[in-house]
């Protein structure tokens, strides 16, 4: 017996359990990439919708989390969505609202991330937040390792500028490590 969408009830229960366990973390990750909570939720919900239509196949292949995350991030940076959201932002007259209750340091981080282009933001989040190696980041974003390393380096420089007061903050000692010396203590309150 199947439900209205042609899936057995057990599959639906599994999916809903998976959703409950993973959605918040996934929205957080995508929020770090987009800097816009509404955009992040929208992209994540669409990714789960796509996952549900091929649930049996995803489960058979292992943990569906990487698949859903990859799809959500691709949706979040798609050009169509960016255009649509630019229009929404125009009518909103200002930056998107922050996540209520977020610590000022983290609000500043989200604001600093907005200064990166979408590809840089995605590379930073995949490598530094999700701890994926550069090669894996390249594979998931359809880029080369060289391009990913270049994006990470530029992103660190830009973040360093926006997350520290001092213009003399030293750049990375090696090509792939973070550049900021003490970003936490240097971050000014967002308000």
């Amino acid at each position, binding site marked *: 017996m199947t439900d209205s*969408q042609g899936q057995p009830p057990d599959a639906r229960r599994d*999916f*809903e359990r998976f*959703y*409950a366990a993973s*959605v*918040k*973390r996934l*929205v*957080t*990750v995508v*929020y*770090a990439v987009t800097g816009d909570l509404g955009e992040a*939720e929208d992209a*994540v*919900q*669409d990714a*789960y*919708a796509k996952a*549900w*239509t091929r649930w049996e196949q995803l489960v058979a292949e292992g943990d569906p989390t990487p698949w859903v995350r990859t799809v959500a991030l691709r949706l979040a940076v798609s050009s169509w969505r960016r255009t649509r959201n630019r229009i929404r932002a125009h009518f909103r007259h200002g930056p998107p609202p922050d*996540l*209520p*209750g*977020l*610590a000022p*340091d*983290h609000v500043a*981080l*989200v604001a600093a991330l907005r200064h990166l282009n979408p590809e840089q933001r995605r590379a*930073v*989040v995949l*490598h*530094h*937040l999700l*701890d*994926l*190696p*550069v*090669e894996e980041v390249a594979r998931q974003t359809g880029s080369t*390792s060289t391009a990913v*390393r270049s994006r990470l380096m530029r992103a*660190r420089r830009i*973040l360093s500028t926006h*997350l520290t007061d001092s213009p003399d903050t030293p750049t990375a000692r*090696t090509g*792939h*490590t*973070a*550049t*900021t*010396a*003490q*970003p*936490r203590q240097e971050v000014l309150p967002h308000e």
Partner: protein
Amino acid sequence: MSDETRRPPQDDLGTLLHDFADDAEPLISVSGGVTDVHERVRRHRTRRRLAVTTAGCAALLSLGLWGLPPLLDGVSADRPERTRPGLVSAASILPAPESGGGLPRTDLLSPSALPWNAGYRWHATATGDGATTPLPTGGTGDCALQWFDGTSAEDQIARTYSGDSDTTAQHRIAAYPDNSAAQHAVRQLAEALHRCGWHETRSPETQDHNSTAPALYEYVLTHGAEAPLRVALVQSDHRVAALVLATPQADDHAHADPRTEHCLEQTVNSAQPHTPSPPSTGHC
């Protein structure tokens, strides 16, 4: 192994991002939850079905539009001469060829088969190879029609007629080496008529060079030397026929008298023994 291929140790940026995620996650509240996910699935499916249906309808419509002109052409091609009443039918001035070849004089129209016979009471004045009875050369300006002179015509027969009110007519049939030469000749003649200021009132459907269907042209000269004049040209197989009429009614042949119509029909039907004759309206 390079640093780029293994997981990097948590650097400051990494630490900052992890702290951010730990801080943000409990604050996230997705409006709609999993119910919204299922609703999105339903909407996507509906949109996909609509897109498929729309694409299917668009494809059918395109096929229909592409297919319509040939169908319309087909309909009109069934009756190529019937968008308006013709002067004469193609078969009446160029009957089917003799099996032995040649141009029999019986192929030439009897006087009673000419248009408007009830009004003009035609009679034949001469029948022969047409050498001594040239066709009218009328046209606008300095135009002089050559008709079949100077073409590759191998044989010609002609009959001239006269009728009341100083009306005259001539029916001529020319034979060419083959279908292609006949087609070329009739096209050249049609172009010459056009250049001489004759107005085309009927033309054949677009034919390819291999077509064997009769090609019927009708022209009328309303101004210039010898006007008014009217000609019907027919080309079929290796022959071309011309029926030229010099009558006061050159600009309107749509109202043929019933007797003429009847006689014309009789002439055509007499060649088809099993076709019943129409009711007689008088002697032809």
